[in-house]
């Protein structure tokens, strides 16, 4: 015999029930709202920070994949130009032929002693292919005064801070002294055509940007560079690309070229990667707290209604229906809290994204590839997933109260 089941308008009933005690509901809902808002903002914020660091780091330092001479990494701080990658004329087209490759950029990094108006200071000389660096090292965006140097000409763009230190401006000339690939010293006089502000403290106070050909001449590196930066069509392909490029360029273990994806290059990235699990723990704790608050409230509402449930059971409502009803109440609370929290978190995230958080002062003492302003990176996905997590948390929190509610037999429940 099949009994026809009546459809119980669960959500409507649950919604009504949340109105029994408005104040209590508001408080319970606010617990979930706080957690969801924190989650939405937190995700946007962390993505913003990581995005800033990763973007800046890959563009100015590591590329998605960086190709250098073996042994360079250990001596990186010395900027050894004697460790370099030769034969760009065949190498670059070979790399470019790769399907996932979007851009290939040779660069020369060199330590230089720079003589300006009477005083000299050590600086970082960067020779780049100016025609192709837009969107990567992005020198045109850094020009604060004057213009970019032109390929083939003895011109230089220097960090504004650095220019002030050695006392030169646009139109002046500087003499740079640097090591060649054969460890002798060589000098070059360059005309300052522009002053740069990058927002990166460690660059602004030491940087000299010159056309790649000038750096090649100075370092005696014709058709060579100290590094080749490879950018994939998507940063997610970096690791894969590094692997296949490694096999291609470095078929035998004794080969003298190292190919590293950005992920393997920086302790900074390692540190930032430890941030994610830590945040997971923190958000987990937040949700547990919010969940406990819901458990508490729902236990009380369930206890209050013990007789009511007994009566409903006596009238033939199934236990599963009562459980479903209480779970729905949890979900309704989660839904309310989730929506309010999502609205709040999204508003804050989008607002902060529009104004930014200025941490320039704090960043001055750190040599990190990090722009001085943090912009959270809000995405709809974060709002949606935070809300869902809030709803699920609330639903899960209702499980124990629901179990308590149907634990008693109808007779027992009515006697209470």
């Amino acid at each position, binding site marked *: 015999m099949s009994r026809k089941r009546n459809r119980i308008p669960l959500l409507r009933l649950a919604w009504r029930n949340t109105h029994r005690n408005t104040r209590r509901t508001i408080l319970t809902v606010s617990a979930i709202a706080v957690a969801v808002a*924190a989650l939405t903002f937190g995700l946007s914020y962390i993505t913003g920070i990581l995005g800033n660091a990763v973007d800046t780091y890959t563009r100015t330092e590591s590329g998605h994949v960086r190709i250098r001479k073996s042994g360079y990494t250990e001596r990186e701080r010395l900027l050894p130009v004697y460790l370099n990658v030769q034969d760009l004329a065949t190498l670059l087209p070979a790399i470019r032929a790769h399907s996932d490759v979007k851009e290939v950029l040779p660069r020369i990094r060199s330590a230089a002693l720079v003589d300006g108006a009477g005083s000299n200071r050590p600086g970082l000389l960067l020779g780049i292919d100016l025609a192709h660096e837009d969107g990567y090292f992005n020198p045109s965006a850094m020009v604060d005064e004057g213009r970019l140097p032109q390929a083939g000409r003895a011109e230089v763009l220097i960090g504004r801070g650095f220019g002030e230190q050695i006392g030169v401006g646009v139109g002046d000339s500087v003499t740079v002294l640097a090591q060649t690939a054969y460890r002798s010293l060589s000098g070059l006089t360059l005309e300052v055509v522009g002053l740069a502000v990058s927002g990166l403290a460690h660059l602004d106070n030491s940087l000299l940007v010159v056309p790649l050909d000038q750096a090649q001449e100075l370092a005696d590196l014709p058709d060579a560079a100290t590094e080749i930066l490879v950018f994939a069509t998507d940063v997610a392909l970096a690791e894969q690309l590094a692997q296949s490029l490694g096999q291609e360029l470095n078929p035998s273990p004794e080969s003298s070229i190292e190919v590293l994806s950005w992920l393997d290059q920086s302790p900074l990235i390692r540190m930032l990667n430890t941030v994610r699990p830590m945040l997971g723990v923190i958000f987990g704790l937040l949700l547990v707290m919010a969940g406990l608050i819901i458990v508490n409230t729902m236990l009380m509402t369930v206890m209050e209604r013990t007789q009511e449930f007994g009566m409903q059971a006596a009238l033939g409502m199934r236990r599963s229906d009562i459980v479903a009803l209480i779970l729905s109440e949890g979900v309704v609370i989660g839904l309310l809290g989730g929506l309010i929290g999502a609205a709040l978190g999204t508003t804050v995230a989008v607002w902060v994204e529009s104004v930014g958080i200025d941490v320039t002062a704090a960043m001055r003492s750190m040599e990190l590839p990090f722009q001085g302003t943090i912009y959270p990176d809000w995405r709809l996905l974060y709002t949606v997933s935070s809300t869902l997590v809030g709803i699920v948390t609330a639903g899960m929190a209702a499980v124990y109260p629901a179990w308590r509610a149907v634990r008693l037999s109808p007779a027992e429940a009515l006697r209470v």
Partner: protein
Amino acid sequence: MLAESIPGRLRPLTILQLGWRNLRRNRRRTWITATTVALAVLLVQVAVSLLIGIEQQSFDNLINYQTAHAKLYAEGYFANRDELPLDYTLTGLDELQATIRGVRGVAATTPRLSFSAQVSNGVDLYACIGVGIQVTGSDHDVFRIPQAVVDGEYLKSGEDGLLMGTGLAELFGVDTGDWVTVLTKTQAGAYEALDLPIVGLVGTGNPLIDRNSFLVPLEIAQYMLGLEGAATELAIRFSPTARDDETIAEITRAVQDLRQLDVKGWREMEEDFMALVRVKRTGQGVFLLIFIVLAVVGITNTILMASFERTREIGMMMAMGLRGSGIRELFLTEGALTGLLGGALGSLVAVAITAYFATVGLDLTAMYGDMDIGYPVKDTIYPAVNIAVLVASWLLTGVLAALASFYPAARASRHIPVEALRHV
């Protein structure tokens, strides 16, 4: 007779007793609420003790190895200090030191001569910071370099040699006993090169020193730079009981008619670092605040529920003559006790965790690898358990919990007895 003044209140002890027993009335709820509080307290405590641990160690590190408590410069030096200029030097050091040592709160002083130099191992050339230190007599009274010598030994006065930062030695691939060439430019502009043996390695945890600096006896530095009898700075250590700002003010007063001199405290020298510390504090504060807000919501909610459940009891107490303020006190107490319970729970776990790390240390290298994490600390930090702070924050949890109960307690206290008694 209506004017008779009768307390109409309960004794504090009774309030406590009632609060405590009411907590036990619904134990499950009490434990759940206490757990939310405990989680918040745990997180805040651990985070704060870790951060304070790191900060304190950073400050100590700066003072012990880099800035001392204060430094005295010739006027003009401080603004250009990044360039390590030799144009603003101090002379008449003995007399100057005697003056400073006479200032109340000053424990020791020592002259130092900082200069830019290139170091070479014959293959590579690297620009770094050289520091001439007074080996006999005074540098170790102000700085703690001898304790940071991880290999070889400390400098000996009058003997050629240098102490090299561990990171710098690693970069060059050199060790104690190896020789390196130090290239400098004298104040007059002439280049000077000197071969020196490495007598020891210093590992302070401070990247500026470990990765970029070497130390030589003061006389050698003076000789190389052609600056006999001169120093770029006079570093000053304060006595442990001295107050920084007062002592700096006194020193300023003591030297003001002497010459054109600048006195800078360590905080002023490390403004950038202090800014970093402040930003980190704010960011972490915001995160911790969210937890505190949730704990507050939890307590407010629970006390509100308790007051709903006990409406009739409230009516009865009021009928017997307990004033509204008495009702309020009862619920505030209940909230405070919940907070204290949760606070105790959370603090206990926090102390256990902190104590664990205090004994084994928290190995930052394992977490972050070998990088500049923005704090000049050794790889392993030892968070401190501070009983006074612990007790104070525990009590604060109670106060906060009482504040969180304020709304429901005030609501309960406004009941009209008749209505409350009618409540089912």
